[in-house]
């Protein structure tokens, strides 16, 4: 059996950054990737807009991935591709991974594990679309693979359900490649994707965006023949009598992403219902000692730059943990869920010598002119005024805390008007 200090699951942007920083921190590191090539989903995200924070440049997905792949290769950090982790067991203080590849099953030992498995797309049945089940209904990510990697159009005349970023990006891609996108339908009363994408992917190509509407039924036996569209009320329930039939040969779904945490759950890692990813502390360690989480497996990000950052921070922490284990004291961060969708991390380890917290949060609603305050007992750790908070656009904040003043006190996040 081979032993490593740190094993990273996933060679997408999170895993590559985690592997790099773990290695740079001196840990003997291995990256395991289930696909044939590293780079993760960035390989098919051929549009630009990546790296503005990380490299101060506007890169495409493949370019962004390439930079990290090159760094990892230059440092000769091993990546096992076409390799799949079937299970992880903890034996005493060591994690034993069962790893399958064309060479058979091998066991790999690790002091720390970083979960960087990314996320998957919600499917039509998972959001309760009914009707028949013809060919031509697919997630935006699958459509993106067909068009960008394989060079095939999955449909000629389609509608897109959900205004998530991948859906908007695919509206433009399909249009550029000669398909007709009849419209983007969003069940909520505001778009889920970034404004930049609404403007450049829809408005530029005169693709209509319909808010407060959804698909209630799909028709067609072999291929999609059309969909039934309905207006929805304020509770997003379809309104009877507003049904309208639209003829099309494809339905592309961009209705949300879910962090992939099946391996985490098998290790009894506790999952936050708000993020669908693990609870972590400021070192990106989950509630199980030695297991770290980052990137879209932790929570769904809108910018790859933050995926990279969380991977880098997780990698550094995991390497440190592998070199000297420590006992944690986790204080919860309290967050009003009526104001925020979530904040990550959800805990502060007050025993850690890292007293700098990088926090990612999303407001629940579109709000204007608010203050976000982070405080402990009576001490204000952070305060910032926002003219505009929008749920699709994640906010990143950084604050320090003083260990001694934090004992037994939780940290509270507040949102105030003003």
């Amino acid at each position, binding site marked *: 059996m081979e032993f490593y200090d740190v094993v990273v699951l996933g060679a997408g942007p999170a895993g590559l950054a985690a592997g790099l920083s773990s290695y740079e921190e001196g840990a003997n590191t291995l990256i395991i990737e289930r696909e044939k*090539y*590293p*780079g993760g989903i960035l*390989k098919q995200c*051929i*549009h*630009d807009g990546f790296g503005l924070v990380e490299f101060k440049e*506007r*890169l*495409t*997905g*493949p*370019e962004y991935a*390439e930079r990290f*792949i*090159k760094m990892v290769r230059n440092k000769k950090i*091993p*990546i*096992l*591709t076409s390799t799949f982790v079937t299970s992880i067991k903890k034996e005493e203080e060591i994690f034993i991974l069962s790893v399958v590849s064309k060479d058979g099953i091998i066991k790999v030992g690790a002091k720390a594990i970083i979960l960087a498995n990314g996320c998957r797309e919600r499917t039509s049945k998972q959001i309760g679309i009914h009707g028949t089940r013809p060919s031509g209904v697919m997630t935006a990510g699958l459509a993106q693979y067909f068009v*960008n*990697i*394989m*060079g095939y159009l999955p449909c000629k005349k389609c509608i897109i359900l959900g205004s998530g970023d991948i859906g908007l990006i695919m509206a433009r*891609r399909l249009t*550029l*490649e000669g398909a007709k996108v009849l419209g983007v339908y969003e069940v909520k009363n505001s778009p889920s994707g970034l*404004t*930049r994408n*609404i*403007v*450049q992917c829809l*408005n*530029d190509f005169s693709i209509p965006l319909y808010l407060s509407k959804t698909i209630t039924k799909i028709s067609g036996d072999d291929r999609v023949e059309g969909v039934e569209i309905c207006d929805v009320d304020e509770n997003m329930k379809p309104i009877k009598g507003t049904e309208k039939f639209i003829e099309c040969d494809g339905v592309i779904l961009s209705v949300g992403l879910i962090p992939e945490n099946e391996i985490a759950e098998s290790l009894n890692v506790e999952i936050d219902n708000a993020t669908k990813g693990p609870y972590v502390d400021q070192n990106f360690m989950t509630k199980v000692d030695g297991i770290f989480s980052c990137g879209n497996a932790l929570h769904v990000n809108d910018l790859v730059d933050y995926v990279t950052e969380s991977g880098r921070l997780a990698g550094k922490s995991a390497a440190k943990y592998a070199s000297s284990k420590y006992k944690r004291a986790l204080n919860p961060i309290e967050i009003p869920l009526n104001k925020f969708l979530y904040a990550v991390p959800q805990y502060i380890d007050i025993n850690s010598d890292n007293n700098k917290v990088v926090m990612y949060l999303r407001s629940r609603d579109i709000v204007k002119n608010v203050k976000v305050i982070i405080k402990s007992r009576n001490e204000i750790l952070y305060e910032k005024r926002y*003219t*505009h908070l*929008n749920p699709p*656009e994640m906010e990143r904040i950084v604050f320090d805390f003083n260990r001694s003043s934090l004992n037994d006190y939780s940290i509270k996040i507040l949102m105030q008007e003003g």
Partner: protein
Amino acid sequence: MEEFTCIICPNGCKIKVEKIEDGFKVEGNICKRGYEFAINEMTNPKRSLCTTVKTSYKDFPRLPVKTDREIPKDMIFKVMEEINKINLTHMVKSNDIIIENVLGTGANIVSTCDMELIFKEE
């Protein structure tokens, strides 16, 4: 008069621009960057274009490419037509030029992928 949604910052101002005698009348912006954005959109909207070209490699049938600078928005489909004529028969690296000065726009179509890097087995 035209209306644009500003994409400079998350505020997403709806900005109205009108051509007047000695310049432009701009409304709805809350900052100077919005003002410039709106006038650019009105007078000379430009976009970068990211797409793919066909290759003759069975395991890599499409190479991702981009324009290395922005091109006029109304040229996008014409440039796509040029790009769609290509059939790449050799390996390229990132930034290798696939089409030089496409349709006289001054922009090159360049590769955004190092094919060898992808092909290389770990």
